[in-house]
C-alpha cells in the first residue's frame, strides 16, 4: 500500500512561494475503505489548499460511488471529474485496485467541467460535444486545453475526439483517455461532480497563465509491409488486402495453435500486437482485443477506416520502456523553456500487461527525464486522446503525457 505521507514526502510540490500561483499534486491509496482511501489520497493535495480541479482515477474494485462523493465533499467548490481505471500509475510504481487523485490549483489556473451522455447505438460524438461545451464558460487565460475522459467501451472512440473538436476548434489542444474496468471489458464509469455516469464523456476545460503541452509516444514498429484496409465497419476490421483480417493477422504473427481457437489466448496474444494506421507524419496505433473465429474478423477499440493503409506492428519491452521514458520529455520540451510543475500520464493498459509480464512495470515509471519533486499521476486506459495538430488524435497502445508549467 502506498501511503499519502510517503507520496508527499517523496514528491513534494513545487512551490514558488508560500502561496504558489499554480500547483499540481498527486495522492493515492490502495486502501479499500472509501473514507480512509480518500483521506489518504487527498492529504498531500489539501496541504496546498483547495484544488481548482481534482481528477479521480479509481479501480472498479473500490466503492466508486462513495469515493467520488467523498472527494467532492472534501474539495468543496473545486471541480471534480474522473473515471474507472485499469490500474493507476504514479511515479515509480503502478497500483492495482487503488485510487489516485491528480489535482491542480492556485490562482494561475481556471477550470470548468461538463459531461454528456451517449449510448452504444449512437456512440459518443454528441456526448463529447456536450461535455466540451464547458469551455464556453471558461475564464480564459493565455493557454487553454480540454481534458476528456470517456467510456472506453461505447462505440468508436474516434468519435470522442471528433465531438470535442466540433466544439473546441483548432486552437484548443485535446488530451485525455478512455475509462477502464480492470480489464473485465464489461462496463466503465465516468465521474462528474461526485455523480457516477456510464456511456458518458466528462471534460475539464483548463486555462493557465503558463504553457501546457502534450507528448505522444508508443514505441511500436511496423512488422509487415503496408496493407490496404479493404473491408471495415466501425470497430470491426473485416479484410486486409482483400483477405480475411484474422487470417492475415494470425499468419503474419505466426500465432500458436491455441491463439487460433481460444478467445482468452487470443486476447493475451493481441495485447502486444497492435495494428498501425499510416498518417501523414506518424503511425496511429489500434488495439486489437478480440477475434471472431467464424467471421474471420478482428475487433479493435477505435476505427480502422476502410481504405486506410495499415501495418501489423511489433514492439518489445525495451521499445515500450523507451516510449514511456521519453513521453514526459517530449511534452516538457514544448513548455517554452519553462519547467514542468506536474505531469498527467495516460498509458494504454496493453502496455501495462506487456511490462507486467516481464516484471518491468514499476521500472517503466521511473521517468528519468522528470525532475525530482515533480508530481506525476495517471491511469492505464482503454484508449488515449492527444490532439495537438490536425483534427484527429485518438490513439491506442500509446502513452500520452500532459505537462503543465
Amino acid at each position, binding site marked *: 500500500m502506498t501511503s499519502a505521507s510517503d507520496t508527499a514526502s517523496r514528491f513534494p510540490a513545487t512551490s514558488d512561494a508560500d502561496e504558489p500561483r499554480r500547483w499540481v499534486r498527486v495522492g493515492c491509496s490502495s486502501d479499500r475503505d472509501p473514507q480512509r482511501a480518500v483521506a489518504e489520497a487527498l492529504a498531500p493535495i489539501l496541504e496546498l489548499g483547495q484544488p481548482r480541479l481534482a481528477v479521480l482515477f479509481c479501480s472498479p474494485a473500490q466503492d466508486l460511488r462513495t469515493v467520488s462523493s467523498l472527494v467532492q465533499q472534501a474539495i468543496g467548490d473545486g471541480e471534480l471529474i474522473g473515471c474507472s481505471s485499469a490500474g493507476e500509475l504514479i511515479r515509480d510504481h503502478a497500483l492495482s485496485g487503488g485510487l489516485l487523485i491528480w489535482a491542480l490549483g492556485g490562482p494561475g489556473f481556471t477550470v470548468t467541467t461538463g459531461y454528456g451522455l451517449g449510448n452504444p447505438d449512437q456512440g459518443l460524438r454528441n456526448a463529447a460535444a456536450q461535455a466540451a461545451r464547458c469551455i464556453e464558460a471558461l475564464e480564459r487565460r493565455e493557454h487553454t486545453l480540454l481534458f476528456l475522459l470517456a467510456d472506453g467501451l461505447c462505440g468508436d472512440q474516434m468519435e470522442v475526439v471528433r465531438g470535442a473538436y466540433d466544439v473546441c476548434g483548432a486552437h484548443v489542444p485535446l488530451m485525455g483517455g478512455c475509462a477502464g474496468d480492470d480489464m473485465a471489458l464489461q462496463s466503465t464509469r465516468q465521474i462528474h461532480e461526485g455523480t457516477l455516469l456510464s456511456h458518458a464523456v466528462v471534460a475539464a476545460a483548463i486555462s493557465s497563465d503558463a504553457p501546457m503541452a502534450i507528448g505522444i509516444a508508443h514505441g511500436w514498429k511496423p512488422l509487415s509491409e503496408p496493407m490496404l484496409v479493404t473491408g*471495415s465497419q466501425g470497430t470491426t476490421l473485416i479484410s486486409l488486402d482483400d483477405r480475411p483480417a484474422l487470417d492475415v493477422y494470425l499468419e503474419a504473427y505466426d500465432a500458436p495453435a491455441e491463439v487460433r481457437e481460444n478467445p482468452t489466448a487470443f486476447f493475451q496474444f493481441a495485447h502486444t500486437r497492435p495494428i498501425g494506421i499510416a498518417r501523414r507524419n506518424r503511425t496511429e496505433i489500434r488495439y486489437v482485443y478480440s477475434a471472431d473465429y467464424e467471421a474471420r474478423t478482428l475487433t479493435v477499440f477505435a476505427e480502422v477506416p*476502410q481504405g486506410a493503409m495499415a501495418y501489423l506492428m511489433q514492439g518489445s519491452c525495451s521499445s515500450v520502456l523507451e516510449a514511456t521514458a521519453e513521453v514526459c520529455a517530449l511534452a516538457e520540451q514544448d513548455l517554452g523553456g519553462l519547467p514542468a510543475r506536474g505531469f498527467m500520464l495516460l498509458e494504454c493498459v496493453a502496455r501495462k500487461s506487456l511490462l507486467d509480464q516481464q516484471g518491468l512495470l514499476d521500472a517503466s515509471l521511473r521517468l528519468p527525464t522528470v525532475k525530482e519533486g515533480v508530481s506525476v499521476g495517471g491511469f492505464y486506459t482503454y484508449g488515449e486522446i492527444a490532439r495537438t495538430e490536425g483534427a484527429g488524435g485518438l490513439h491506442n497502445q500509446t502513452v500520452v503525457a500532459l505537462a503543465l508549467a
Partner: protein
Amino acid sequence: MSSAPWSLHLLGEVLSAFSVDSPTALRDVVSRVAEAVDAEITAILRHDSFSLCTGLTQDEKGRLLELVPSRSDRLVLEGTTYHLHWSPLGGDQLLVVGRANTAYDLEERALLRGMGRSIELSTRVLDAVRAQREALQAEKLAKEAAIREATIDHLTGLPNRRELLRQLRERLRRVAEDQGQQTVLFIDLDHFKQVNDLHGHRAGDQVLRVVADHLRAMTRAGDVVGRMSGDEFVMLCSLPAAADAERLATRILDALRESLQSQGMAIASAAASIGIAVAEAGDTPDTLLDNADMAMYAAKQRGRGRCARYLPSMREQLAERHRLEEELRQGLAGDQMRAWLQPIVSTAHGGVVGFEALVRWQHPQRGLLSPDRFLAVAEEADLLRDIDAAVLSDACIQVSRWQTSRKGLLPRLSVNVSAVSLADRRLHERVSRTLEVTGFPAANLFLEITETTLVDDLVSASVNITELERLGIRLAIDDFGTGYSSLSYLKRFPVGILKIDRSFISGLGGGSEDDVIVETVVKMARSLGLEVVAEGVETAAQVERLRLFGCHYLQGYLYGAPAAAEVSEARYRASLDAQLGMVLQS
C-alpha cells in the same frame, strides 16, 4: 515511419466514409478529409454560408468567408498561420481545408482536389440514391396506408372482417400442418341494438370503442381480435384446450360487464354472449366462423351474458332458427298473428269487464304456436314491433266486430307493448291509425308495459306516452311489484291500471308477506285513483283475499285461459247476459 506512399489510399478512406444509411455521411467525410491531411479547418461553403465547418469559432468563420473572393491561401488566427486549399465541389460549392503552419505540398494539393471531386460525385450519387430511397419509402408508406385502410376497422382500430378472414385462413393452414390448435371466440354484444335505438349511434359507437379497447387489452401476444361487423367481434386464439377458451371467454364477459356498467354504458347487464369453436382438420374460415356464430346464438338462447361451445347439433338448431325466422316474416306478412284473449273479471260482480290480448301464431303447418316458441327468434330478428302491431290490430279488429254485431258495452282491451315498440317514436302513429281503421274506442284501450320498460328509457317513453295520452289511451303497468315499484311515474304518466304480478297472488293466504304486499299495493293504488288487476288468480281462496283487500279486477285461469276471439266473444256475451239476468232478478 514507413516509406510507403501514404496519400493515394486516403481517397479510398474518404470515399468509404460515404454511407447511404448514415444521416451524417457528409460530416463524417469532412472529418476524414481533415484527419487525412492533419488539417485543423475543413469547411464546405456556398456563396456566403457554410454547409459544414469544423475547427473555427463563429467569428473565425466570418474571417474565412471574407477570403472567398480572393481564394487566399492563408488565414492567420490567434497568431497561427493556417494554409488554405480551395477545391471546387461542383456548382457554387467549395471545399476549404486549412492546416496550421505547414503548407500543402504538390501531392497533397493533388490529393485534396481529388477528394473534392470525389465528394462532389459521391454527394450527387448519394442525393440520387436518397431521393430514390425516399420515393420508394413514400411508395411503401402509401402501400402500407392502403393496406391499413383495407384491413383496419376505422371505428375501433381493430382488424376488420377481411383481415380477420385472412389471418384465420393462415392459422388454419398451420392447423392443417399440425402446428397447434386454433380457437375462435365469437363475441356479440347483448341488446346492442337498443343502445343505438334508445341513445343514438354516437353512444353505440362509444360502446363499441370501449369494448374494442378491452378486447385488445385482453388479447395475448400472438392472438388476434377484430371486428366482424356491427356489434360482432372475433378473437382468434391459439389455446391448448377448449377449457382454456371457456376460461378466457368468462374473463372477457366479466371484464366487459364490469367496464360497461362502471362507465354507465346503457347496455343490458348481460353485456355480451360468446360462442367458442375449435378448429378441426378441414375447417375453412367460413365454417369455423359459422360454428362460433352458432355457439354464440346458443349462448344467447340460454339467457345471454354467457359463453357456449359449438356442438354439431347446433347446426340443425340454427337451421331451424333460420327457418322459423323466415316463416315468422311470412307469417307477419300473411296475417297469421292472432290475438287470443284472456278475460278480466270484476271482483264486485264476477262479470267479464275486459280482456288481455295475448299473441298466438296460427302457423299453416305447425298449427297454433304459443309465444315461447317464437318470441326469442322474433327479438333476435327485430320483429317484436311488428308482432306488437299485429296483435294490437287483430285484437281491435276482433273486439270491434262484437260492437257491430251487437249493441252493448264494449269490453276493455289490454295490449302488451314491448320495450322496442315503446322506444319507437312512431308508436303513437301506429296506434292512432289502428284505432282509426278499426273504430275501437281509445278510452277502452290500455297499453300494458312493464315497469322496467318504462323506467329504463324515460325520455323516449315520455314522448310516446304523451302522444298516446292525447289520443285518450291509458297505461296498464304490468308485473307491478317485480321492478322498481316507483310511485313517481304513476303520477307522471296516464296510468289507469296496476297489474299485480302473479308471483304475489300465488302466495296469498295465511298471513304471508304477499298478503301484506298485495294489500299495500291495492290501498296505494286506490288512494291514487288507480284500478288494480290481480294476475294469475287460480283459487277461490285467492279471490276471497283479493276481495277483502279491495282489488278491483281479477285475471287468471280460474276465470278462463286465453282463447280465440270467437270463444272470447261468446264468453263475454254470456257474462253480459248473466249480469243482465242478475239485474233483472234483482
